[in-house]
């Protein structure tokens, strides 16, 4: 790079591209959350009951909880490799607003770990015998909800990235924070299967998404500055 200054937009795009490229090269990290989602979701029928009527009742909750756990499992990869090889420090030292850098990393992470889960969810919903009129609701609410999981989880990961045994602490910090999304998502599916309109829940989930896009990267950035001294 010559002396030309890099604009924030270019830096944003470069970070996004870099993270996507790394994820593409390391396919394990990409496939694992996805596999985890499939396995957890298929444990419920085995553990509770294979009876199709009972499955239909719990299907929405099972899918949401599996998606939440899958996103939690994938969170650990978000900053750890960068923390270990020092590129996280370079990111913090860069002259661009940390907000956009963190947002780019979060978007890349969600595209890799969250989006596949959302895309496969109708299939699992079919296997769990979810009423067919709820498929659209499930898909849209997961599409709005999983980025919020990623953004909130990012705060927890940023706080714990320097720790040796962070898995459990990450869960203790992150899971209670994700509850509002879980409630809104499952309520939306439950209500629409009773014939209510979807608009209100979509608005609430959308509001959560907008709020976490605008606030969570700030908190993650501050947490990264604390963790990386």
């Amino acid at each position, binding site marked *: 790079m010559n002396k030309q200054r890099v604009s924030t937009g270019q830096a944003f795009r470069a970070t996004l591209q870099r993270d996507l490229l790394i994820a593409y090269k390391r396919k394990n990290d990409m496939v694992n959350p996805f596999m985890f989602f499939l396995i957890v979701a298929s444990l419920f029928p085995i553990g509770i009951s294979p009876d199709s009527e009972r499955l239909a009742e719990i299907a929405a909750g099972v899918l949401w909880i599996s998606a939440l756990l899958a996103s939690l499992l994938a969170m650990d990869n978000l900053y750890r490799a960068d923390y270990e090889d020092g590129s996280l420090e370079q990111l913090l030292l860069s002259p661009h607003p940390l907000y956009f850098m963190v947002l780019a990393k979060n978007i890349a992470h969600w595209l890799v770990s969250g989006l596949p889960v959302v895309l496969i969810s109708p299939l699992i919903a079919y296997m769990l015998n979810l009423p067919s009129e709820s498929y659209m609701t499930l898909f849209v609410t997961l599409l709005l909800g999983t980025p919020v999981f990623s953004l909130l989880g990012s705060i927890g990961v940023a706080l714990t990235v320097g720790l040796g045994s962070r898995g459990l602490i990450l869960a*203790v*910090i992150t899971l209670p*924070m994700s509850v509002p999304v879980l409630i809104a998502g499952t309520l939306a599916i439950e209500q629409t299967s009773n014939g209510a309109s979807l608009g209100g829940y979509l608005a609430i989930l959308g509001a959560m998404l907008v709020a976490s896009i605008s606030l969570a990267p700030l908190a993650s950035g501050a947490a990264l500055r604390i963790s990386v001294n």
Partner: protein
Amino acid sequence: MILFLVIGATWALLYVPQDYQQGLTNRILYVHVPVASLSLSFFPLMAVAGTITLVWKMKLADMVVKVAAPLGAWFTALALASGSIWGVDTWGTWWIWDGRLTSLLLQFFLLLGIISLRSALEDSDAAARACALLSIVGCINVVVIKYSVDWWNTLHQPGTTFGMTSDQPNGPEFWIPLLIMGIAVALFFAVSLILATRNEILERERRSQWVQELVQE
């Protein structure tokens, strides 16, 4: 504090007229209501102290965040326990997934998360800032959780207003002991917070001159 606690507890437990429906059980109200309402104040307290830690880097504010977290967990646990003892008689169940109960339970989990984060971080300066940040985030989140679970499922009664005259449903013979108990519990909280903070100061400054002198006396 002790005076208020003794007066409040005796009055509430012995002299308040029994509720015509709930009988003696309603007397647990005089423990449950003050403890529960106070336990809601922990996150705002920790968020304010956390902001002070982050902005002005005051050590004392961080100590307050540190000692308030276990205290808050205890108060939250007490509120949940007294509520469920009350609930077993009036609702017929120890636990129910109701809005208020669930949001208080999640607040309990968040407080435990803050405590475990602090114990996991070895560098005390980083731990102070990390916990301060988590308190602020948690404070926003407790509000969100509170509202989200409220339209999820609700059994717990809303707050009751207390009237000044005795011919109203909740006359002075009910609310004056409640007020005394409220003051007593608030004072108890203040005293334990101050005592715990004093311990914390002594422990952190154990190498300084004045603490050494204090110990030697």
